[in-house]
């Protein structure tokens, strides 16, 4: 959309906004419309020139421009005929309704009816459910765990998790602070008392969560959930694998980081070289065992030792199941 189309779309909402929010601050208007304060001042400069046909001073929208520029407060009058915003565009309706359906996947069950009724009201405003052409699938664990976590976060309570990793279960005691959705998976961001550090837990691997009876401690701000979010999961470890056809899916399925250039030469023509961040050494061993010989270790050079040892141990045990000792 052109600059002026964006601006006109905004003006047709800004004019009613400033009438339903008499004396709104320039800062609040900027926040509401996602633009800079200078842009709001520029918008007001245009609005001031608009009004009823005729062009007489009384016909124009009135704004105290000095109060806006210097005092940061906006007083707009004489625009009764633009007192309500325009209808939603199809894109606004679809984007907001899909967003609500994502929220529905994470909210406590008590709020599920509110999501449904909000969607119904939005539909009544637009007569449109093209959002239903978009399907969002989220792995967010079971309701009762999410409820318990949400309550603990709101009440600043310490909890004990029953957490299942691929290899074993554990019962970490944590102070939960946030539920993040990343790549379709809901994660709990929490301070781990065992580790003395911020940790991220997949919520679909938490089978239960109970309060310890203690209040959560203060640990400063949790890591930012913004893009690059898995940096803090990474630790210092990475593994670089050369993936043959048939296992190249792993490079698209799991998060990867750029491969150091000196490692790229190690690939054969049909292989793809991928570098995976490793938060937990067990994960790296499990990945290699799953992918098998079609994934060659490039770096670190001895990363293949442990998987090979476990493969030998497993072969010996499988052998023993058929030849009782």
């Amino acid at each position, binding site marked *: 959309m052109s600059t002026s189309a964006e601006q006109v779309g905004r003006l047709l909402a800004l004019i009613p906004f400033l009438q339903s929010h008499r004396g709104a601050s320039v800062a609040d208007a900027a926040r509401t419309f996602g633009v800079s304060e200078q842009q709001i001042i520029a918008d007001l400069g245009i609005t001031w020139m608009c009004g*009823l046909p005729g062009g007489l001073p009384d016909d124009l929208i009135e704004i105290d421009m000095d109060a806006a520029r210097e005092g940061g407060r906006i007083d707009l009058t004489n625009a009764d005929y633009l007192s309500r915003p325009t209808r939603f565009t199809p894109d606004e309706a679809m984007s907001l309704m899909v967003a609500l359906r994502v929220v529905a996947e994470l909210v406590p069950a008590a709020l599920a009816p509110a999501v449904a009724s909000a969607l119904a009201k939005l539909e009544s405003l637009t007569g449109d459910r093209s959002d239903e052409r978009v399907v969002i699938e989220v792995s967010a664990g079971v309701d009762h765990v999410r409820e318990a976590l949400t309550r603990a976060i709101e009440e600043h309570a310490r909890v004990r998790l029953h957490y299942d990793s691929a290899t074993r279960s554990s019962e970490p005691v944590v102070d939960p602070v946030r539920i993040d959705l990343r790549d379709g998976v809901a994660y709990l961001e929490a301070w781990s008392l065992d580790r003395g550090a911020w940790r991220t837990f997949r919520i679909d691997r938490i089978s239960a969560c109970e309060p310890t009876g203690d209040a959560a401690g203060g640990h400063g701000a949790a890591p930012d959930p913004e893009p690059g979010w898995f940096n803090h999961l990474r630790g210092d470890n990475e593994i670089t694998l050369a993936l043959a056809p048939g296992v190249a899916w792993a490079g698209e399925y799991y998060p990867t980081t750029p491969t150091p250039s000196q490692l790229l030469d190690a690939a054969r023509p049909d292989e793809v070289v991928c570098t995976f961040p490793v938060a937990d050494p067990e994960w790296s061993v499990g990945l290699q065992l799953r992918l098998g010989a079609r994934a060659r270790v490039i770096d670190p050079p001895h990363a293949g030792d442990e998987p090979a040892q476990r493969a030998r141990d497993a072969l010996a045990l499988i052998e023993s199941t058929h030849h009782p000792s």
Partner: protein
Amino acid sequence: MPASKSERLVNLTICLLVSPRYLSREQIRHTVEGYRGLGEAAFVRTFERDKDDLRAMGVPIETGSDDPFFEDEPGYRIRRGDFELPPVNFTADELSVLGAAARVWHEASAAASTASALAKLRAAGLEPDADRLTALEPTVSAEGPAFDVLWSATRDRRVVEFQYRGGATRHLEPWGMTWRSGHWYVVGRDRDKQETRIFRVSRIVGVPRASSRSGAFEVPPDARPAELARNLEPGEPDATAILAIRSGRAPLLRRQARSATPPPGVTVPDGFDVVELGYHSALDMVGQVCAAAPDVLPLAPPELCDRVVAHLQDIVASHAGAGASS
């Protein structure tokens, strides 16, 4: 100049909105400040473009005539009922889920559209509550240049053409989009192959192009993207594996399993429990068992045991071949 154009478009909107009658082009030319001083040809060109721009923004400019005897000279107006957001009210709970919805999109046009929808609600005096569900960060990623084109083509039912993984150009009627495991897929009818197909958006090369007008096809009522996306799921289990799992280990695999008795002639190592679970893809089952080696051992069926053994032997052999120490 964008400034004077914005001013002219707002004044045109107000003029058509407050007029009780259809206004002819000539009346508009003399009424709206921004058109005065333009020659006839320049005015017609500018007015036509302004009209298109406003309609593209969703401003409903209607064409018609109050006088049935002068039908050949059309007039224009905006009906308030079509223009304004209808009356609506939200409960406190609804406003808090709307407040959380504001944080879902971070990129692409969907983020800007959600923000402007919520700004309209605020303009109507409704305040989405961003302070209540602060513990939730329900982010959906929508990065990549292909997303925006497919998103609006899906909404407007326009055919798109694109290159997929180096293959020939595809022509797709996009019926829907699906987000699963952090990836976007577009589902629809492939016009070249004459069949229903699903494409992963990140594998589209370059930027797709919308190659038809809006509403160029109908989405079959029985072809919901949710159902098509289910084709991506593993199929229903049609085989049963019997496994030995070391006590206290591999809890995720154990969760899907039931306890079972060992097959005849098999000795279970000490400290292992016997479970069974259904599976559809032998490849996936082999992967799951091997990933948890040596805490999970296959006991039956024999084909599964053979494949696991072969997979593990390959790992040992290639590790020895790589000359690594053991």
